[in-house]
């Protein structure tokens, strides 16, 4: 056994190990199965995800550091891991029919989805810059390939290349910031770093490090002005991957953001709060206003997703335990409504219809009432209308901001969500009011029906009965505080 690593460390990363093994099994089964039966790989993948979820159960209330501070196994990480795994499972279910239509081979596809999920899990658990970086890269490289997975599609290729080039560029910036943090503190462990920086005079080099890390993370969460890749990549990537990217990657990046800034740089709280406050305002506003005129729904949802990053930042700026709770709650809720919306788009994809344009939603109510109703719910939830989950999430974010005396942030948030309803409701108008779109009947496969059912149920139940989620998120946010971050949790 390598020095510094004990057997219990291996036990504590059991979920990650299960997922890794599952990913390898997918690769092996892919080779063993005859080509026409490879659709079954989806079930193998789901099994792997299910097993990973089950293996999380023993760690419900664990609160330890693994391998001398490389990873933390705590409720905060657990909360995010559940989000990632659920999102991955939904993505897989969404992909079954999509891959058939596009005629792509499922083997590496599902393998890469599991790899990306693994990366996310490491990001959420990472309390060391090295681990976080490894997780980030595992996730990012998987997504670069997945974005370009539909090989005959130029849009898909273009998305992949753009994402890769810009991702590499922003990673450079992030790494530079991280190296400055290391150089100034002499450690890569965030918790040790926090202790080292505590009580120190503000150092200009540290400010530079903060700025660079904010820019790098800002790219990952697609905050304005680091967002420009998002609309192109979201539009070009295969729809299920877009969904996973906008939910999983975003949530993982927020987990990373919280770890780095709240655990590692609480002493610089004043500086990064100011930066994130500005980013939140610009991101919400630009995202929503740009979404107003989009006619491609994937692109519109890309801008909506940008705007949502702005809302979520509000909770981080507030920085109170209520703010962090709101952030976690919102990311959880957002996963369902966003994945659900993309699932409807996947359902509209037919051999003869791309299903991404606003007009493709015309008269959906008459052709597929359930899909239309589901989409209506997701749009209302994204827009923050009660009694859907989205309202609860927004209410908590905005009230956290007011509670922490960021009144203007809340005002801008409320105004933005008022603006955003305009483009969400436009889809509703097309579905319920406009004439039926051309093309063959949109078919709902059983897997898609499951996805829609789950997302609809979550959007409604979490709106009507959000209590349990709030309690879990609250407990998760508090594990951060217990790790010596109480000072930054005002």
């Amino acid at each position, binding site marked *: 056994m390598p020095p510094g690593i004990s057997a219990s460390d291996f036990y504590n990363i059991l979920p990650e190990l299960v997922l890794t093994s599952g990913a390898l099994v997918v690769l092996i089964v892919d080779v063993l199965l005859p080509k026409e039966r490879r659709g079954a790989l989806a079930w193998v993948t789901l099994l792997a995800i299910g097993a990973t979820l089950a293996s999380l159960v023993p760690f419900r209330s664990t609160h330890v550091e693994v391998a001398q501070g490389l990873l933390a196994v705590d409720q905060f990480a657990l909360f995010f891991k559940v989000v990632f795994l659920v999102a991955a499972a939904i993505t897989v279910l969404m992909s079954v029919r999509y891959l058939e239509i596009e005629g792509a081979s499922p083997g590496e596809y599902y393998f890469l989805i599991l790899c990306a999920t693994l990366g996310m899990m490491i990001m959420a658990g990472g309390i060391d810059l090295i681990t976080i970086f490894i997780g980030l890269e595992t996730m990012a490289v998987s997504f670069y390939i997945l974005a370009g997975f539909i090989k005959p599609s*130029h849009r898909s*290729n273009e998305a992949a290349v753009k994402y890769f080039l*810009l991702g590499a560029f922003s990673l450079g910036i992030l790494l530079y910031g991280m190296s400055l943090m290391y150089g100034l503190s002499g450690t890569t462990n965030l918790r040790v770093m926090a202790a080292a920086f505590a009580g120190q005079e503000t150092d200009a080099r540290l400010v*530079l490090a903060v700025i660079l890390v*904010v820019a790098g993370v800002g790219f990952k969460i697609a905050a304005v002005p680091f967002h420009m890749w998002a609309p192109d990549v979201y539009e070009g990537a295969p729809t299920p991957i877009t969904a996973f990217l906008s939910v999983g990657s975003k949530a993982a990046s927020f987990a990373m953001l919280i770890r780095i800034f709240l655990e590692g740089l609480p002493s610089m709280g004043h500086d990064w709060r100011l930066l994130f406050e500005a980013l939140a305002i610009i991101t919400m506003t630009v995202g929503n206003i740009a979404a107003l005129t989009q006619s491609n729904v994937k692109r519109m949802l890309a801008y909506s997703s940008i705007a949502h990053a702005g809302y979520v930042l509000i909770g981080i700026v507030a920085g109170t335990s209520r703010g962090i709770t709101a952030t976690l709650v919102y990311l959880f809720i957002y996963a369902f409504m966003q994945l659900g919306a993309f699932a409807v788009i996947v359902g509209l994809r037919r051999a003869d219809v791309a299903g991404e344009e606003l007009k493709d939603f015309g008269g959906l109510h008459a052709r597929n009432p359930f899909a239309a109703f589901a989409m209506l719910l997701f749009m209302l939830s994204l827009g923050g*209308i009660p009694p859907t989950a989205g309202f609860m999430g927004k209410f908590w974010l905005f009230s956290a901001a007011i509670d922490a005396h960021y009144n203007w942030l809340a005002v801008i948030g409320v105004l933005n969500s008022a603006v955003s309803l305009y483009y969400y409701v436009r889809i509703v*108008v097309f579905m319920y009011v406009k004439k039926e779109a051309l093309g063959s009947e949109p078919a709902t496969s059983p897997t898609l029906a499951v996805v829609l059912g789950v997302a609809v149920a979550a959007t409604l139940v979490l709106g009507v*009965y*959000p209590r349990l989620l709030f309690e879990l998120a*609250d407990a998760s946010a508090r594990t951060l505080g217990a790790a010596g971050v109480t000072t930054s949790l005002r």
Partner: protein
Amino acid sequence: MLLLIPLLPLLGFLVNASFGRRVGKAAAAAIACGAMAGSFAVSLLAVWRLVVLPPASRAIVDQVFTWISSGDFTAGFALRLDPLSAVMILVVTGIGSLIHVYSTAYMHEESDAEYARYFSYLNLFAAFMLVLVLGANFLVMFVGWEGVGLCSYLLIGFWYQKQSASDAGKKAFIVNRIGDAGFLLGVLLAFKTFGTVDFQEIAPIAAAIRPETAFGTVSLITLLLFVGAAGKSAQIPLYIWLPDAMEGPTPVSALIHAATMVTAGVYMIGRNAVLFSHAPQTLAIVAAIGVATALMAGTIGLVQNDIKRVLAYSTVSQLGYMFLAMGVGAYSAGIFHLYTHAFFKALLFLGSGAVIHAMGGEQDLRRMGGLKNDLPITYRTFLVGALAIAGVPGLAGFFSKDEILFDTYARGHTLLWAVGMLTSLLTAIYMFRLVFLAFHGDPPAPRATAGAGHVAPSHAAPSHHAAHLHDAPPAMTWVLIALAAGSVLAGYVGVPPVFAGSNWFGRFLEPSFSGAVVHEIPESPSLEGTLMVVSTFVAMSGIGIGMYFFKNHPRAADAVAERFPGVRNLLLNKYYVDEMYDASIVQPIRIVSEDVLWKAVDVRVIDGAVNGVGETVGSLSERLRRMQSGSVRTYAASVFLGVVLILGYYLWR
């Protein structure tokens, strides 16, 4: 038990939305009407249980479940019945039931699926409205608040084949968003200030603080809430959506845009009377906006030619009265007017619906005339409604309007009172202009072609209406008669002391407003009596003026209009407010979004690539080169620029 009140219409909605198109019209109507009638019955029972309690403890709370619980904050999904919400649920379910019954006949020409869709929306609307008025805290109220907005949007755009209908729906939606943003901010600020969103918990905290002399937090909260109220209840500057909302089916106009939903803003202020009474500055604004809206809408109503638009502006104007009452602290008077107005405005709208129904979809007053002989029941009931709204003694509108005007005068707001009186004159004039133009005089010839170009889609087929005009089917006429009876009798629950009454209604509501700062006014029967004589005189003069210009000397009205073409155009074009909004708000936003962000920020290079698919596409390497030399570099530059900007900020700081 309280839960059952909104739950029944909600079930009606679910059943009709899922199976309505398959069960046929009769069953769909029975389900919807049954749900409403059941809800009305439960409401009566609940109110009875409330009334038998001693006045001080008149409240029934139904904690359905704990909604949010986080840290020290909990908010339940709780319903609460007190005198104020009791009045509201009776109005909503009572008038609502009648309008449901009326709709069974009015919408009968729709297809089965459309018919079921209509009734499912109507039920859903009622369910949300009941949640709004029964909600024990701001969050539950907000559920209803947004819900009724959504249903209203669906119902305005019901005849979506009409472009104007779908535009009107959109306009209502957008304008209401502005109001709702204000409302939500008010709620958030109240939450922060009081640490709770429960009305019952906020009231004692607010009652304990001194009324703000300067503009402070409470003033800000109430002002934000009032923005929400102005949006929902169509007050200046957010009233513009209501007249357009008349594009929906007429029973919808009656239910939503006259009798119930639009009063939500008034109700909300009443619900938070304690809070508002501690912010005199906001109250002054409420009163001023209310009376200004009343006057402005009254003047516009004078010249409109669409029968429903006249009534729509009349609604805006009457809502202005209610806000005036709230603003001067006469909360129970405002709610009293809300309650009587629900009767006669529903009657007037449904009466106009009967006219439109008979005329085959015609809504233009200039193409009507002489209908009193063809539609005797409609005429008589409509006349009762018109007399009631004009404030003729003995009818419902007289008691409630007079109470508002008396309270305004007695509290020293002489100017507000005078404007209110002027509006009262205008009300009588425009109502009787409508009555005389539609029902008296000679029918324009040839009637057979009337309205061919204005027919609502559902009424497109039957032209036999035009050939032989007759009263509406019994389901409609009986509703009109019932509402006419209500318009006569509803006022007698609030007879003022001057007529040896005891204002039972006001005393019943009192517990709901306890804790509010009220400037007691000395009982003064002589003053009240004098004011009543004045307002009766004003109402009668209004009717007389209407008769002179629009019955006896129709030319005279045109002559006056020609003498003042500027005023006439100003009023016909509704003070050009829509145009002003378009130029100052709509266009700039459109330009920013489309020209700046669409063309400059969102470069959408990918568009070119998509268009290229299907044409001859160059080699991948060439494509890559193009991307590298093009957008990707731009994007990277944007990231870099972001970093530099932030850095620059720090260096210059």
